[in-house]
């Protein structure tokens, strides 16, 4: 049987009551990694008038002993009991002094403000953020003008690399999600259409919704999570490593160098991906119609063609291009404004995704109204 390596709490602290004085004898092994006796439990309800520490044979001690002595001292102070530490070892006395300094908390102050100030401060904050975003968008516009004038200054190689990363490499996930979106929509519309014996109109529903709405929207959501977050993380890391400062002190605008290639890449690739997503969504609808509604693919395709015209496709693609730019802006903006720390980069990616999705939905709603007025 292995011998116990520690003495039990009871043997480490011995209480010797003498009249109204309580002598506390400490001995044995005190390790911070092991449980420490509780003073209140040891007292078991007794109320001494004086507490005196007596030092027995201490084998090994560390902060555990310090904390115990401190606990006793605090208890004595609260109870108004005299605590005699006179024969304490010098090292322990010094450490206890340090602990006391650490433990002295400044008086807690009421930092809350009245309701009106809080509203005012929050409004100021919102205004500052709005200004910041407006400044960033303005910078991007100026940069776009500058790069249109001097196209050789545009980082074509970076832009192509980003296009590959956000376009070609996103194909598998876009394929899967848009195919499934088409499938789901076909199932749902089949429930409705069957009631009227209008099974074939599933093709119209899936085609129209996919081309006008879901193709662009689903692609934008995927790229907001995939590419917008990546932009924010990359730029945030570059900021933490002073790489962006290095560009600035070289007189190169980070927006020209880092933001424009990324936004152009997303703005170009998003409509292409959306077009691809449209196709796969229609394919998904076709599969369900064939399997569940027994509509032959040829009939489905012809019906789809009659339902969709080029205007529908165009609205989807216009939206996709705008969503691409929005996701890119959100990603780059939060990356460039990231704090210089690991947590800052993490927050930037979160902000990029949330802001990207928010912008996409808000602009989608705006587009719905605008297209209705324009008659597209």
């Amino acid at each position, binding site marked *: 049987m292995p011998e116990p390596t520690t003495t039990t709490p009871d043997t480490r602290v011995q209480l010797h009551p003498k009249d109204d004085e309580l002598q506390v004898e400490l001995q044995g092994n005190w390790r911070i990694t092991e449980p420490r006796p509780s003073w209140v439990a040891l007292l078991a309800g007794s109320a001494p008038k004086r507490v005196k520490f007596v030092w027995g044979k201490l084998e090994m001690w560390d902060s555990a002993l310090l904390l115990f002595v401190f606990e006793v001292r605090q208890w004595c102070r609260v109870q108004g009991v005299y605590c005699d530490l006179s024969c304490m070892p010098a090292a322990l006395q010094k450490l206890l002094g340090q602990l006391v300094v650490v433990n002295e908390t400044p008086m807690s102050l009421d930092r809350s403000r009245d309701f009106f100030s809080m509203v005012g401060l929050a409004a100021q904050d919102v205004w500052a953020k709005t200004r910041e975003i407006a400044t960033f968008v303005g910078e991007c516009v100026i940069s776009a003008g500058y790069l249109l004038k001097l196209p050789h200054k545009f980082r074509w190689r970076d832009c192509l690399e980003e296009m590959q990363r956000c376009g070609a490499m996103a194909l598998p996930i876009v394929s899967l999600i848009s195919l499934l979106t088409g499938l789901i929509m076909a199932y749902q519309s089949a429930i409705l259409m069957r009631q009227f014996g209008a099974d074939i109109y599933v093709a119209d529903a899936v085609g129209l919704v996919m081309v006008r709405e879901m193709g662009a929207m689903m692609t934008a959501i995927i790229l907001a999570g995939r590419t917008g977050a990546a932009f924010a993380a990359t730029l945030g*890391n*570059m900021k933490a490593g*002073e790489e962006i*400062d*290095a560009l600035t*002190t070289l*007189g190169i605008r980070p927006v020209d160098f880092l933001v424009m290639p990324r936004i152009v890449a997303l703005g170009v690739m998003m409509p292409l991906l959306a077009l691809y997503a449209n196709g796969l969504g229609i394919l998904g609808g076709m599969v369900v119609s064939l399997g569940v509604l027994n509509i032959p693919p040829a009939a489905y395709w012809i019906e789809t063609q009659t339902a969709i015209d080029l205007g529908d496709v165009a609205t989807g693609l216009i939206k996709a291009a705008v969503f691409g730019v929005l996701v890119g802006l959100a990603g780059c903006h939060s990356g460039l404004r990231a704090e210089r720390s690991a947590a800052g980069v993490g927050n930037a990616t979160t902000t990029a995704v949330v802001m990207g999705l928010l912008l996409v939905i808000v602009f989608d709603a705006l587009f719905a109204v605008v297209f209705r007025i324009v008659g597209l």
Partner: protein
Amino acid sequence: MNTGQNLPALDVAGLECGYDEQVLLRDVNFQVKRGEIFFIIGGSGCGKSTLLRHIVGLRAPTAGTVKFFGECFNEATAGRQREMLKRIGVLYQGGALWSSLSLLENVMLPLEEYTPLDAAERAELACMKLAQVGLAGYDGYFPSEISGGMRKRAGLARALALDPAIVFFDEPSAGLDPLTSRKLDELIVNLRDLLGMTCVVVSHELASIFSIADRVVMLDKHAGGIIADGDPRALVKESTDVRVREFLGRGEDAKVAALQNQPSP
């Protein structure tokens, strides 16, 4: 360069710097002569790097002016600032190399932006700059593949790409072993001697300060500004300010005596 030969390379007047609403440094005044190796020193958190960031235009000072060769920098137009930045090189603490580009591309980028050189000439010149800092043969490497000291040297090669008239160093010896740090000091002296560059170094490395600094200004957190300005070897002996003597002497009188006997550069 027909006029203004006597103007200081850097003239900081009444500069006030800080972050958000908190002012860290008030009324900072100093001038750096051409070809001088000038150190900004002080304890941790006293605002050395903050001052540097305000001087090179990464942050706008709340008051005061920064002049390079007699021309006001912080109140110039953005276009003019870009022109002026071509004559300024900055070596950042970690090198701040662009991680997506190889060392050669890092050094070539400033050349690509600002010179009419063709690609072959740019590569040749960039290779030469890398060789100058002892990184010959590393041009194809990426910043993630080399050590911290090498990154710093590559950062220096990039800062020197456009042959700037004034180079800023942000804690060049931080995190380097004594030998590499010494080599970097030698490199700084060489730059000054060979090319006549003005070097402004932010550092708290006493060995560097005593071996290569022509002049130092010392910042202090509580004073919120400059508390000493002069030759470090003179300051350590003669300064009336106990904080300056303590910092330069590492708080020990014996060390002070030993350091005083070091030869001037």
